[in-house]
């Protein structure tokens, strides 16, 4: 089947999509967007997290046919106007990235958190990231990065009114 949907602001179509195929497979293998990672294919690790109509979901658990006519935003779509999002910058600066496999999912999930909650508490950060596994960092630097991004966004006055996708 053919599936047409908006990805990072652009309408895209994928052809010969198998009916049981996941959105993650379509993004990575058919649309050349390998940012979202495939680690578990069972919703456990969060490395495939993308926005679907503005809500973070595991792309591995969304059937491709379910995104027909809908809006998807991946990690590739977080940077705007050639500038990394503050969340992305903070992850680099804080050393929150080691192998980087978990990073795209964490970036989308943290981006969503900060667009809803300008200054999240540590408990809120942990809760928001509870579905994103990292085998390398031990999470502390990820928490640092989210706190730094929150401060930066607040300082830049951009926390308010910015929709997720």
């Amino acid at each position, binding site marked *: 089947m053919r599936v047409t949907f908006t990805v990072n602001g652009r309408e895209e179509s994928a052809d010969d999509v198998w009916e*049981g195929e996941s959105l993650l497979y379509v993004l990575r293998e058919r649309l050349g967007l390998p940012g979202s990672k495939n680690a578990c294919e069972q*919703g456990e690790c969060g490395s495939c997290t993308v926005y679907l109509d503005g809500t973070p979901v595991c792309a*591995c658990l969304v059937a491709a046919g379910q995104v027909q006519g809908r809006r998807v935003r991946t990690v590739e779509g977080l940077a705007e106007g050639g500038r990394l999002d503050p969340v992305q910058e903070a992850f680099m600066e804080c050393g929150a990235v080691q192998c980087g496999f978990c990073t795209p999912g964490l970036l989308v999930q943290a981006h969503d958190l900060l667009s809803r909650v300008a200054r999240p508490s540590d408990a809120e950060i942990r809760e928001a990231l509870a*579905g994103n596994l990292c085998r390398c960092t031990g999470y502390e630097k990820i928490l640092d990065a989210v706190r730094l991004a929150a401060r930066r966004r607040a300082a830049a006055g951009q926390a308010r009114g910015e929709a997720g996708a």
Partner: protein
Amino acid sequence: MDFLRPTTWQEALAAKADRPGALPLQGGTDVMVEINFDVRRPEALLDLTGVAELREWSVAGGVCRLGAGVTYATVIDELGGALPGLAQAARTVGSPQIRNRGTVGGNLGAASPAGDSHPPLLAAGAAVEVESRGRGVRTIPAHAFYLGVKRPALEPDELIRAVRVPVAAGPQYFSKVGTRNAMVIAVCSFALALHPAERRVGTGIGSAAPTPLRALEAEDFLSRELDWDAALDAGLLRRFGELCAAAAAPIDDVRGTAAYRRHAVAVMARRTLTWAWDDHRGRRAA
């Protein structure tokens, strides 16, 4: 495999009647795992996310009617007041991403003994509204909905349309045992609801028998023995825990032993009744 995409409830019922082998697909958090891992190859997927009415909920006559496509995230954000037991259970499901997609209807369709919606639905006295093109609507009380391990009381041409849950008239609590505070399939779980007008206590046990179930003898015991105007009696509390544990029929598996589950059910039963009773007494004092 075919991908069926009804946009109205009537179309969905027609599709299911014409293709009983089509597998309903809502949030996909159960279905897609099975497809990704080649555990299941249905002849067709019947995507219900295009049927907008399934995502809606409404309250009328003291009953909340929750469309089959209402997500856990919506239950948490919008129904914490009306359905506190279900909302507490929803907060423990998976992760934020899973709660954004997973639905109460999907939990019912999967009918796993470990599903977190079931104990609070049982305790609250919910009923599942199912429908087919040929025979119309059937309303199945939650306690009659779970026929066996992952076997809901659905005919091949039927779909779940909604679940009707009485709006809480008293305190409700949900408790779940697991290894982590997120992403945990219940080792076992317990839900309790006070129904003060009827002087009745509802219960629901999860993950401690082939199906979710009520602890009927424990409920009857409280109906007989509980003094609604007094503090909780320690002996009565202990007996309630024992009767709840006796209602369970757990097995040993990777998540826990049968003996541990029985023990934990008794502990959760006592705790949830204590919490609910504190609220009940506090509410009366206030």
